[in-house]
């Protein structure tokens, strides 16, 4: 009589405490008494925060109405944002002309989609469209004065529109300028190098506000009598120079990552400095630097709020002006929360894009 089992016994399932939801919770939430305590405390904090936010922003909030009298709830009063929405988006841009801004948005959005997404492989024409066509058309659209469009002075520009104009123009100027500065900093000509290092280090050592003050107070002194820029251009000059210095350091980081052999190979093929840079070095260096460039751009986008201090009516300052309105007393929280949310959506979107791009570009150097 055989008492030895000949066939294999069915595998037992793993202990219930080690798998599934319970196992995961035991490992990740309650692995030790301290950890369990932390979990409980954190869950309480989350419940407290989320319930507070939800009841403030939704349950006890007011959404319908026109005036301050409609703010009856204990929570947020989004009526304030709704009543001033046009101003928050466009500033004092004349209401009947706002379609021009919208067309500009659509053109830029198409360009951004073509340049940034994977849909079009050859980026030459999208780039020409985005960096030549759109800026020129937008200038004529926004400022007007030709093609039968009424002139809209820049002092009437404001809100999110102005913030976007500030950010895009600054980056548009700062990137090429930053590349030139970075090349200058790595140049073999001592005087050029010294000038570039001096400029970059000086600008990076001082706060943006002082640069903006300088642009708004000192620039008029530097220019000959009668020649005067408006406030927006002065702010743009300050912001562009400021971000160019940061951009230069980012590009320099990219340039330093390219092995010396690339330049030597280019030279041995008979390419001159600009040919080698334009065809061999910069494409590789900029590709490496793209995530950092996007990060610099996020910083620049957040820094546009500083124009409030020199009196431009960007998104933040137009909301701030709204909260000091006598008819809307006590709307500070709503206003600033709304501004924070808008900025958060833009910046978080850009940082996700930068991460996506980093993964996509992480090719060619893999082994």
């Amino acid at each position, binding site marked *: 009589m055989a008492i030895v089992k000949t066939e294999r016994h069915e595998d037992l399932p793993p202990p219930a405490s080690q798998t599934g939801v319970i196992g995961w919770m035991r490992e990740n939430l309650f*692995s030790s008494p301290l950890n369990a305590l932390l*979990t409980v405390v954190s*869950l309480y904090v989350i419940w407290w925060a989320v319930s507070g936010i939800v009841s403030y922003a939704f349950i006890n909030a007011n959404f319908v109405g026109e005036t301050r009298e409609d703010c009856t709830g204990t929570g947020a009063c989004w009526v304030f944002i709704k009543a001033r929405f046009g101003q928050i988006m466009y500033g004092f841009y004349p209401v009947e002309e706002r379609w021009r801004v919208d067309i500009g948005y659509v053109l830029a959005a198409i360009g951004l989609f073509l340049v940034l997404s994977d849909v079009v492989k050859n980026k030459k024409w999208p780039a020409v469209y985005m960096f030549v066509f759109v800026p020129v058309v937008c200038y004529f659209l926004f400022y007007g004065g030709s093609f039968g469009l009424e002139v809209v002075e820049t002092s009437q520009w404001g809100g999110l529109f102005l913030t976007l104009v500030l950010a895009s123009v600054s980056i548009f100027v700062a990137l090429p300028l930053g590349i030139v500065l970075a090349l200058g900093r790595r140049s073999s000509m001592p005087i050029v190098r010294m000038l570039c290092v001096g400029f970059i280090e000086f600008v990076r050592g001082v706060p943006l*506000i002082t640069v903006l003050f300088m642009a708004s107070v000192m620039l008029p002194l530097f220019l000959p*009598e009668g020649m005067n820029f408006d406030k927006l251009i002065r702010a743009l000059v300050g912001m562009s120079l400021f971000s160019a210095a940061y951009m230069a350091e980012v590009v320099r980081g990219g340039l330093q990552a390219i092995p010396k052999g690339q330049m030597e190979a280019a030279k041995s093929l008979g390419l001159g400095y600009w040919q080698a840079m334009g065809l061999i070095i910069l494409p590789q260096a900029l590709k490496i630097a793209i995530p950092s460039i996007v990060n610099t751009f996020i910083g620049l986008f*957040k820094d546009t709020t500083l124009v409030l201090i020199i009196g431009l009516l960007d998104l933040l300052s137009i909301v701030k002006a709204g909260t000091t309105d006598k008819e809307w007393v006590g709307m500070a929280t709503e206003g*600033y929360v709304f501004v924070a949310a808008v900025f958060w959506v833009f910046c978080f979107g850009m940082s996700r894009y930068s991460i996506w791009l980093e993964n996509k570009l992480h090719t060619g150097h893999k082994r």
Partner: protein
Amino acid sequence: MTAEAADLEVAKINKFRDPRYRAIFYQIVVVVLIALFVWYVGHNTAVNLEKRGIASGFGFLSQPAGFGIGIVLLMDYSSQTSTHLDVLIIGIINTLAVSISGIFLATLIGFIFGVLRLSKNWVVNKIAAVYIEVIRNIPLLVQLMFWYFAVLSVLPLVKDSIHIGDNFLINNRGVSFPAIIPASGFWLITVALLVAIVLCFVVKNWAHKRQDLTGQIFPVFWTSVGLIIVLPVIASLIMGNPFEINYPEYGRFSITGGWSLEPEFLALLLGLSIYTGAFIAEIVRSGINAVSHGQTEAAHSLGLSPGKTTRLVVLPQALRVIVPPLTSQYLNLVKNSSLATAIGYADITALFAGTSLNQTGQAIECIMITMIFYLSISLLISMFMNWYNKRIALVER
């Protein structure tokens, strides 16, 4: 071809095709252009200043300022007699005050959240992630405005102050708490504190030597804490408690007595340290991640406790990665403190590049002095952090 002929051949080549000559030529062009630009700007400025009747120079520094300042620390200031130089010094002190406290608080917040972000506890980890992602993506100025106008300004009036304990008051004029006013004999406490700090270093060196010789470990940290607490307490008892405690009390319109922190200062401090803390948390997380797991395993296999592993093995190596980006965050914090202008904290930018500039019209001088101040602070912090970085850097063979 003879040697002379070859030389002739070279000499015939256009000098402009030689990179060396070309470089010199380009640089001369650059220098000439810059010189022309500077001359043009200088000339315009001189003409403009003359037209506006502004005498350039630093004479205005000794003129009376004639405006009031909200927050004055460590100085006497009167709007009648004090000069613009006093204004500059007050501005510098205020900037340094908020920057230094901000750096401490931001480092604390950053390290706590950086470590929480690495926690194996899923909930804790996500809380830290949400904090970092939310705060990093909202402009600092918006956060400052939020703290100042939406949080601190809606606190109760002075007469309805929130009490924490008996003597800790919170209202829309700031936070008040008991002050310690030194009386005669207070010097002994200060001396005792200094002696305690010196003794800590002595103990540390002695413990280190003893550990090298005998392998025995001495509890340096707790000894130091004990010294720093016990010595001043003994000194205080010897002199019969040579200080008074001044409690905040309700006055007619505001709180009198005690020490208080103004809402402007608090908003700036909170905004700066919460914002910078989020960046520091990311730096700390990536720094600790950069230490390979083998190091931890090796430390465990040598029998080091988890605490010692962190303190003696992981942190020293992580700090090498953390310090350089941490430096630039500190620099950012100091530079960002200039946003004080927007909420009315009297820092150097608001006072000197703001009010003084508007009163005197000396735009160039005021802005230049302000910029030089920030530049020298940047330089000092970089120098200190470079020294520290060199000290903790890997000693290679």
